[in-house]
């Protein structure tokens, strides 16, 4: 036999086996669907869970990405409940701390922030946006870009000018669609001239970063008379971990904190960074992946046992058919492949139905969640979906072997005599 004829023979044999196996699946549609149910639910859960994971990852990334990869923030306060539960309102960060930090060679662009509290008004419009007393480096550290006018500069700070820069939501609240530049707003008892507006930043650490007003740091310090800082933003010069360690060492030394075990709960300050957030995100992703894998493994094993059970029943029910096929020339391996392919088809098809249902459920869920979390977007983890379907098909292969082997080993005449 020449090669092309051999290839044609193998192709035809594969097609015949496929169509025979498909016939077996279609012959009893309702039972096939019920058999697939375990796999369908398993794959749908995996697809749904991985979609939720991918969406949440996007949400968290959107919170930290605006900071920039080398940006860090030092807050006063303790971290009793873990990294996500910073207790603010402490006065542990001082101007002396800032001066010491500025001397570190591993950090740059240290930018202190003091909050101005009080009602803000323009004409009859009143609101309470966050008011930040900042230095120009703050805009660089936070990747804040100008929309109109100009940003606060060193001259504003040195001259303690009563000027303000508004973020988009604050502009909208006070001025609607009119031009705010040159207008005067009142913050507490002080008047400020609007000199610029910024582009939208979105949210940072789940806080709206667009409902803000920026004023010169020197002005805020004078108004509040505050002896401490609300927080400091800064940037790592090169090696992020080294900067992180230097900041912690410096502040612990200055604050007299003996912390040889590097237990961050003992500190009276907290250092946050986008890199650190990414690390946490990585841990969360890993945990979520393990969780999804566990769900997938359990569902596929349960589904696989169901498939094996039904396939064993099918082999018993179709014993005479197997005998007949052998009587007309089927080899044992033809029968083996036929029943194995039926099992793989059941799980593969179940996997695909599960995928469609999982994606549909994830889509519906994203619509519902968006009501509570505006930044939640529908996302699908393609690798997870592909792996889930392949694993489903593989389950059919593993759990289909025993029934298929049982069928293939049947003796033709005993199978034909089976009642």
């Amino acid at each position, binding site marked *: 036999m020449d090669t092309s*004829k051999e290839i*044609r*023979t*193998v192709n*035809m*044999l594969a097609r*015949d086996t496929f169509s*025979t196996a498909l*016939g077996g699946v279609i*012959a009893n549609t309702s039972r096939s669907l019920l058999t697939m149910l375990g796999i369908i639910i398993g794959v749908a859960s995996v697809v749904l869970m991985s979609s939720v994971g991918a969406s949440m990852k996007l949400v968290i990334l959107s919170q930290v990405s605006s900071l920039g990869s080398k940006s860090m923030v030092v807050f006063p306060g303790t971290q009793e409940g873990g990294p996500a539960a910073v207790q603010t309102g402490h006065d542990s960060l001082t101007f002396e701390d800032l001066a010491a930090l500025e001397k570190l060679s591993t950090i740059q662009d240290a930018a202190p922030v003091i909050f101005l509290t009080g009602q803000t008004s323009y004409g009859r419009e009143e609101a309470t946006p966050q008011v930040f007393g900042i230095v120009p480096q703050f805009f660089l550290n936070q990747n804040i870009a100008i929309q109109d006018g100009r940003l606060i500069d060193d001259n504003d700070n040195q001259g303690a000018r009563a000027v303000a820069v508004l973020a988009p939501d604050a502009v909208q609240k006070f001025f609607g669609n009119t031009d705010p530049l040159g207008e005067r707003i009142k913050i507490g008892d002080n008047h400020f001239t609007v000199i610029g507006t910024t582009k939208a930043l979105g949210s940072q650490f789940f806080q709206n970063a667009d409902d803000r007003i920026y004023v010169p740091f020197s002005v805020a310090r004078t108004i509040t008379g505050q002896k401490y800082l609300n927080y400091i933003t800064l940037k790592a010069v090169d090696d992020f971990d080294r900067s992180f360690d230097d900041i912690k060492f410096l502040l612990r030394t200055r604050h007299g904190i003996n912390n040889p075990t590097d237990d961050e709960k003992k500190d009276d300050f907290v250092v946050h960074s986008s890199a650190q957030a990414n690390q946490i995100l990585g841990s969360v992703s890993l945990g979520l992946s393990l969780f999804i894998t566990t769900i997938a493994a359990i569902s596929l094993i349960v589904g696989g046992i169901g498939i094996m059970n039904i396939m064993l029943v099918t082999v018993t029910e179709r014993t*005479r*058919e197997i*005998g*007949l*096929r*052998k*009587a*007309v*020339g*089927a*080899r*044992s391996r*033809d029968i083996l492949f036929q029943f194995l392919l039926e099992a793989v088809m059941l799980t593969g098809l179940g996997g695909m139905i599960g995928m469609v249902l999982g994606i549909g459920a994830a889509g519906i869920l994203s619509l519902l969640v968006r009501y509570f979390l505006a930044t939640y977007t529908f996302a699908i983890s393609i690798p997870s979906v592909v792996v889930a379907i392949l694993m489903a098909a593989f389950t059919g292969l593993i759990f289909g072997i025993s029934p298929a082997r049982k069928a293939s080993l049947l*003796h*033709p*005449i005993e199978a*034909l005599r089976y009642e």
Partner: protein
Amino acid sequence: MEKTHPLIEVRHLSKSYFNDGIETPVLHDIDLVIRKGEFIAIMGPSGSGKSTLMHILGFLDVHTTGDYLFQGERTIRMDDDALAKIRATRVSFVFQAFNLLPRTTVLQNVMLPLLYHPTIPVAERIERSLQAIASVDLLDRKDFLSSQLSGGQKQRVAIARALVTDPDVIFADEPTGNLDSASGIAVMNALQKLHASGHTIILVTHDRTTAEHADRIILVRDGHIEGDTHSEHART
């Protein structure tokens, strides 16, 4: 000059079944020669071993001792693939219980053996199946499901399925056993037609009238061949 082997040659063939170490002999020291083109009836009462003999001759079962030569080739050491190949190409069966696939059409049932002939293209499979169905006068029922046919029609479909591979020998195990007399006659006529076209037919029956359709009757009783005679039909 090349020696011509008989189609089937059996020498001192015995068959026993073993169950929990207990031997149950079924066939004893069978000697038999069948030549190409013969129409043979293996006849005997229930439990005589006639069906077992047919199953061995048709490669559905294997003998315990003795020799079985098919076209001069010893069969005792043939593996699963070799036996499957013979079943696919050289022999075929018509069973008493029809053994048609449920929920499938007449055409699909007749095409079934060709599934194991992967070198035959689909178009040719369909053509050969339609010819086989036409030869048993069921072309108008080719798209009927097997469950929609009468017993006689089912058996004619089984005959069409048996001849679609153009085998050397067709084995028929009590082909009229489940049929009324009119259907039985139609089935036997179909087998005789096949014989007339050159096929070797080996028929197993307990019924003398059915056996009389054959040319040669081999009488089996208690696992032995008790007689090997020409039928009335052949003598006349």
